């Protein structure tokens, strides 16, 4: 049974890559949007651009994983294609994990391009194993968050609207552009319950931008966020087929 589920997860992810992710809208949303933002900040202050690299990587992780999830989940629910997947001899959890994995693989490709590009051009020293680990865990956390928000609603536009809220809140509060330490105390506390804070912190530490954080804590918090998002998402999807 677990072999069937693993096979299902893999093929659903590959199929989603082919049908949805590797298409211009997903690529532009996943990579062009974060690049445009960072370019704007670079023009404002070119001297401190190296400090913006962790934020650029974190934003790419966030936007690329959630770029097509509304389509991947809500559009398929509407068309009945998701039901077709549920008729296969795999569990409902495997179907949703396949959808999440699709976002993770696409996000990894986009983030790898941005990370390798910036690290090599700017000559940054990276702790590669930690950097890859933080990025992968973050990809799972955000893809799971996207899946959870998508199964909460019915329509594609509702899911896209709902996804925009945490995405934009996190851009401003999680250290992408302004350090969390510089935020007012009340806002700072709020930033610590947002997963992107731990992505930015983990990437900063992997690139040696800051020394004060705790990368092990970042790893565990990102794992915890993934679980917190995945289980309700599975329950909510199962409820749609109760």
């Amino acid at each position, binding site marked *: *049974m677990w072999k*069937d589920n693993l*096979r*299902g997860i893999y*093929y*659903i992810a590959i*199929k989603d890559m*082919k*049908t*949805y992710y590797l298409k211009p809208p997903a690529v532009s949303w996943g990579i062009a949007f974060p690049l445009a933002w960072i370019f704007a900040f670079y023009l404002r202050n070119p001297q401190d651009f190296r400090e913006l690299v962790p934020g650029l990587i974190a934003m790419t992780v966030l936007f690329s994983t959630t770029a097509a999830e509304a389509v991947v989940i809500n559009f398929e629910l509407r*068309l*009945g*294609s998701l*039901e*077709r*997947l*549920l*008729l*296969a*001899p*795999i*569990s409902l959890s495997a179907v949703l994990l396949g959808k999440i994995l699709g976002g993770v693989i696409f996000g990894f490709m986009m983030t790898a391009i941005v990370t390798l590009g910036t690290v090599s051009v700017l000559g940054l020293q990276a702790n590669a194993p930690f950097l890859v680990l933080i990025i992968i865990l973050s990809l799972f956390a955000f893809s799971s968050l996207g899946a959870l928000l998508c199964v909460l609603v019915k329509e594609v536009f509702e899911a896209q609207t709902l996804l925009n809220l945490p995405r934009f809140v996190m851009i401003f509060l999680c250290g992408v552009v302004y350090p969390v330490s510089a935020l007012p105390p009340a806002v700072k506390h709020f930033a610590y319950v947002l997963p992107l804070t731990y992505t930015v912190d983990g990437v900063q530490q992997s690139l040696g931008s800051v020394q004060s954080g705790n990368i092990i804590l970042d790893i565990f918090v990102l794992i915890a966020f993934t679980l917190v998002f995945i289980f309700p998402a599975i329950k909510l999807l199962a409820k749609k*087929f*109760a």
Partner: protein
Amino acid sequence: MRPLEQTFEMKQDSANVISVSGLTKYYDGLLAVDGIDFEVKEGEVFGFLGPNGAGKTTTIRMLTGLSQPSAGTAQVLGHDIRTGITLAKKEFGVVPEVSNLYDELTALENLVFMAQLYGVPSDERVKRTGELLKTFGLFEKKGARFSTLSRGMKRAVTIAAALIHRPKLLFLDEPTVGLDVVNARSLRSLIQKLNHQGVTIFLTTHYLEEADLLCDRIAILVRGQVVALDTSDNLKQLVKSEPACEVRFAPTPEEVISDLEKQRGIHRVESSGANLHLYGESMPSLTEAIFQYASQKGLEIASISSAKPTLEDAFVQITGMSLEAMLVEKGGR
């Protein structure tokens, strides 16, 4: 070739592929399926006949694991639908009412994806997809995107996708809805062919002729309840019909119905295209009245035969519903 009666007797002795007991489903407090019981034998074509909203699709959804029953039990291919449905899914295929494969993928890619999901070995995938595309006359279209195929072709690819893992049991939910006459006819032939190859068919339809043509046994479902279950012939015998015959005059006079109804021995007359259905006291009195009328008016009788009860008659009598109710498509069309 075996006589039909013998074939059906053999199926009667077969094992149950589906056993349903007290299956019930509520949607938001509304009763959609009301404690139904039935069994489907191995190798038969089992028809689930009923108007839209009768609970046919809800029943299929429960039997295929897309929906959980509110009460009752069911076994599909020996697996309980609550605990063993994933194992059962390996052995059954489903053709939903809507052709819901991926528009972005080609016909071939859709079939290969389904083969991958069902764990068809990689060396078998190409062979099976090729065979199915040829069977459905779609080999030339294998590279065409699903979105570009005609409705009939989409239906055919959807059925092919349900057969990719060579299921023992095939659920077909309103397979011919929306198809033109030619495509519907070829699909019915295909269903018969699959059944002859040993696939048990569970067919839901609201087309009476389709059920009559294809099904070994028919369950009539009305408002979530099975109100009759038998062979088509036995259901027709339930009709307490008055003697009737079918006649065609050449030419057919305009006032024929009112004229005939005035004839002694004829109770009522209904027209069905160029044919007239006449109901009366007895066959001799009916035929006598018809010949007398033809002679008086100088008409030629093009054809005359005794009219047997149809499945339509049986349906109307069993359910108390009008045929129009059956013909209403989903959404009131």
